[in-house]
């Protein structure tokens, strides 16, 4: 069942005197529960596509439906509320708030929801437990390793129980072991919790965890591959 539908999706922006078009009439369908990897050279439009799906950027033209919602038709405040409900974003550089502990970082998106302190606590503990960091809840980001920071970021992304997880090079700043742990976690979230995951990556090894890999070039789809064997 299609969760994300992109038709003739185009994104342009001006830089200096020239117009840059990172996405150029892209067509794409993503099914519910799918784990999709996006690959391609720098400037091919991977992150732009991710941002459009996550609702933090708007298409210049074309249509983008996510779970039946036309994101371009939403006002800024409605789009913010939609993001809070439907999307979790995992950044390459984690983007945790440095003055907040791991617990507080994970709790941050829940502050937007009408939950009691106890309900928030239960959800944060559950999310940190899911990423295996329930004993690091009082640690600040600077007291965590890169892999641990990324797992806190994943806990923050899933704590509101969104249907979609978008991840922009989630292992781009990690060593091999940490990258494996993070990718295993994402795969677990996909297979066990049914999260639809769209991941941008430069690392071919990580695409093995996904169910489908798409290659982008100059803002269009280049080819599609089925997943390979997951490395040990």
């Amino acid at each position: 069942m299609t969760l994300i539908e992109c038709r003739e999706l185009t994104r342009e922006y001006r830089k200096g005197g020239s117009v840059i078009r990172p996405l150029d009439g892209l067509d794409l369908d993503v099914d519910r529960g799918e784990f999709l990897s996006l690959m391609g050279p720098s400037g091919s439009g991977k992150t732009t596509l991710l941002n459009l799906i996550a609702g933090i950027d708007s298409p210049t033209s074309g249509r983008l439906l996510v779970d039946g919602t036309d994101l371009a038709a939403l006002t800024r405040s409605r789009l913010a509320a939609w993001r809070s409900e439907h999307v979790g974003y995992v950044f390459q550089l984690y983007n945790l708030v440095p003055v907040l502990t791991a617990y507080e970082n994970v709790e941050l998106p829940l502050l937007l929801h009408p939950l009691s302190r106890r309900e928030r606590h239960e959800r944060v503990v559950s999310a940190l437990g899911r990423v295996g960091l329930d004993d690091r809840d009082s640690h600040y980001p600077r007291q965590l390793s890169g892999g641990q920071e990324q797992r806190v970021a994943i806990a923050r992304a899933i704590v509101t129980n969104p249907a979609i997880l978008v991840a922009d090079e989630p292992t781009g700043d990690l060593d091999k072991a940490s990258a494996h742990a993070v990718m295993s976690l994402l795969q677990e979230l996909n297979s066990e919790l049914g999260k639809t995951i769209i991941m941008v990556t430069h690392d071919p090894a990580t695409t093995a965890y996904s169910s489908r890999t798409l290659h982008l070039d100059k803002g269009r789809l280049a080819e599609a591959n089925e997943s390979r064997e997951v490395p040990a």
Partner: protein
Amino acid sequence: MTLPRCLPYVLKQVTRHRVRSLLTVAGIAIAMFLFTVVQAMSEGVGEATSASANETTLVVYRKDRYCPATSQLPQDYQRRIESVEGVVSATPTKVVVSNCRTSLDVVTYRGVPKDAFLRDRGDALEIVAGSVADWQRRTDAALVGETLANRRALRPGMTFDAAGITVYVAGVFRSDDPQDQNVAFTSLEFVQLAGRDQLGIVTQFEVKVADASLLEDVAASIDETFATAQEPTATFTKQAFVGRIASDLIELVGFARWLGLGCLAAVLALVGNSILLSVQSRVSEHAVLQTLGFSGRLVTALIVAEGILLAIVGGAVGASAALAVAHIGSFALSVEGTSIPIIADPALLLTGLVVCGVIGVVAGLFPAWQASRREIAACFRTA
């Protein structure tokens, strides 16, 4: 409803750069200290010069004289003043000051006929220490206003010396009249004898009039009575008299209001600068918040809340310190025997906090609006 849940986040952001925040709070506190002092002086001017509707007191002074040392009127004017229609009583008063200049610590003696004084003014004075009986018994006794007593740490039984006159403190009183709060009332003869050839000479008369509506007519009649005398008089309402004698001081306090406004501008600049620096260093963090679902309006509110918090903490420290200093010091700006009290009114703290809150909003609004309107994806590209 979301904002209150996010206040711990605001608090953490404010304490994120401790030194910067502390310096900002210190700057705000200093500016608000000055602002509050200026406000306290302005309140004092207002209280000393604003006539109440039921004011029935006139002050008769020597015409064309502006200080107690040169205003010399024969004491026997009392009978002629009391014969003017509408006058209830006239109290001859000899004023001696320890310092003719404007100062925060002037001792003003007011020599009065004790019995007449107690008859006319006794009810208006609340004795907070010592006794009136003691004051009546001793020639050198003084009833000391609470402001003066606090400033000089005077208690009943002590003696103190000022302007070459040594008095015994018989009691300390509290009065609603700011002019009374900063003086020492003694026997008229005692003060007259303390000066050379001053027996029978007084500085002024305090005249009680039967009705407030008669004040102008009675003042005109008194001045007309002595128009051709060797010592002509000039008669004013009590507040107009203070306004005339302390006009330079009042003008100075009026100018100081500009200083107060300058302090507020400094607070605005300090908070604005701090918030701007903070927002500029957190472009991607605000983009992350919006990615998580924080609306632009909520991000604006969080940043403005940081401004309010900084301004209010600084304002509370500065205004409280100013009120504490004013209260402990019991200062009054005195000139030529009249006093402009510096009033440590707790309401000034509330005023200061409200002003700081508004400044916090104004200072934070523009950077907050900028942060909330940035394109989220563009913020990540830039970072």
